[in-house]
């Protein structure tokens, strides 16, 4: 087991991503290689879930695209993730926001988590 761990660590580059939780609104910059051309695609949506651990840890981002719900799963360890920007912190009461899939419009809106400084 130790050798597997060692080999995996040796072969992976740590991705430095900001911490975010399910319910947060993020903008993922993803590198896309087409032939010999390379471009960066931005994908903005709400984090639906974070699952797995180690190299297989992933997060799912859901967005509405022309009235159709789209979900993309990104591995945390993927070298193709250029950056993740956290745009809004969401106030949610669950770790997996599967209920959002059933909702559209205003009901699918996540309340923002407000930070009030203690005086």
């Amino acid at each position, binding site marked *: 087991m130790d*050798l597997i761990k060692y*080999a995996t660590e040796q*072969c992976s580059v740590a991705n430095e991503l900001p911490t975010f939780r399910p319910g947060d609104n993020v903008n993922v910059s993803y*590198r896309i290689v087409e032939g010999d051309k390379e471009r960066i695609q931005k994908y903005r949506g709400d984090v639906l879930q974070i699952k797995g651990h180690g190299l297989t840890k992933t997060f799912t981002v859901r967005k509405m695209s022309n009235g159709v719900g789209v979900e993309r799963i990104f591995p945390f*360890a993927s*070298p193709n993730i250029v950056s993740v920007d956290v745009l809004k912190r969401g106030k949610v009461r669950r770790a997996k926001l599967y209920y959002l899939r059933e909702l559209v419009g205003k009901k699918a809106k996540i309340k923002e988590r407000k930070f009030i400084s203690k005086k």
Partner: protein
Amino acid sequence: MNGIIGKKIGMTSIFNEDGRNISCTIVEAAPNVVTQVKSEDTDGYSAIQLSHGEAKAKKGRTSKALQGHFDKAGTTPKRKSIEFRDCTLDKSLGDTVAISDIFEEGDIVRAIGKSKGKGFQGVVKRYNFRGVGDATHGQHNRLRAPGSIGAASYPAKVVKGMRMAGRMGGDRVTVKNLQVVRILEDKNLLLIKGAIPGHKGSIVVIEK
């Protein structure tokens, strides 16, 4: 053919330069010792014999004949010795062969191992027969049956080689066209794309 004897450690997955996640098998191949060199003149063919792993030290584990064989190469008794015919490595008796002597990242190799034993299995698992396919229409407890195994009074026997239920697994299996993804020399590890026959800890031969 050049090769090295190693131990299957297990599997993991890594991201390659294209950002693709590829699954690989980790093989630990500590330097092998050359325990015999065969040549055209003395043996009728050329080959080198490599030995891998430490044999158990308990008395009587290594026969006197084998002990003498390993003494000749100036090494301790080993667990496994395998011959590689027409080896192009320039090594003599007692030398060690490391991963880097043979392999480079990106090489296409073949892996030889002993597959996991599956025990006594029926024809559906063993030979991918399809079974009867219907649970109803008069079928009763023969969902995974082989069906007919031949005609009746002529030939009045079951032809040889008829595929039937029996012991499965535990065979020598060669997998060709595997790629060396990464070499970690400090721990003598080879990462090979794809799966390799055998259980964890089993002996595998990687050939180029």
